[in-house]
């Protein structure tokens, strides 16, 4: 059992929203998250990518729970935030809340 990746809030500069093809769902998710990050006035980049093309430059990877293990293998240094709902998922809201209040982001895997 290895330690879970933990990122201090001010370490988070890049959030990658990942899905299978990087075509539709992750774009939708990334757009929503961008909006939330902007509203919270956080200086964090949000991009979207297919899970197979993740790299370790991501600080946080937001990914559907069905693809979370694959995401962790591709980006072992990132905190993984799995979600189940593409709209208004509590895990995504919590992520933005933690970043806003300066709480560390702990990987769920």
């Amino acid at each position, binding site marked *: 059992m290895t330690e879970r990746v933990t990122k201090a809030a001010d370490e988070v500069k890049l959030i990658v929203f990942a899905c299978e*093809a*990087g*075509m539709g769902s992750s774009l939708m998710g990334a757009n929503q998250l961008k909006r939330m990050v902007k509203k919270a006035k956080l200086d964090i980049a949000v991009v979207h990518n*297919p899970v197979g093309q993740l790299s370790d430059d991501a600080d946080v990877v937001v990914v559907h729970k*069905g693809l979370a293990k694959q995401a962790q293998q591709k980006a072992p240094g990132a905190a993984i935030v799995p979600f*189940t709902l593409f709209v208004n998922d509590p895990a995504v809201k919590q992520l933005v809340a933690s970043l806003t209040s300066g709480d560390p982001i702990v990987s769920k895997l």
Partner: protein
Amino acid sequence: MSAVVDDGLGGVLMPADIVLGCRADSRDEAIEFSGSLLVARGSVSAEYVEGMKQREEVVSTYLGNGVALPHGVLESKDHIRSTGIVVSQYPDGVDWGPGTAHLVVGLAAVGDDHVQVLSRLAEVLQDEDLCGALAQSDDAAFVYERLTAPPSDD
């Protein structure tokens, strides 16, 4: 209503790509219909439709508020000829697994031509009342207009 000549969307979603009042007994049937629309508009070859079905087995494309966004798996991208978006409306709904889909947005995308429409769709999704109206509307011009309104900048 005058014909839209240049909608600024690069032709990825045209009024003719919206089909209201559809019925399907299953998710796969609805995906096959969306796929056939994408084939008919020349965006994909028939193989892509299989990729759309496969994708649902990996992670469902049900987004919430009655909207699903079926599209192919990564490897089916080879079967895309040009970016296209097709919208089929199911007033009675289709069981999509995590939820009941009323608005099925079939997507095939290469490059970033689809970003503007999906950004708008992300906004529509946040609006439960609007999603409900789009699910039942019999006015294709209204549906097209709501789905293609420029994304707000707030």
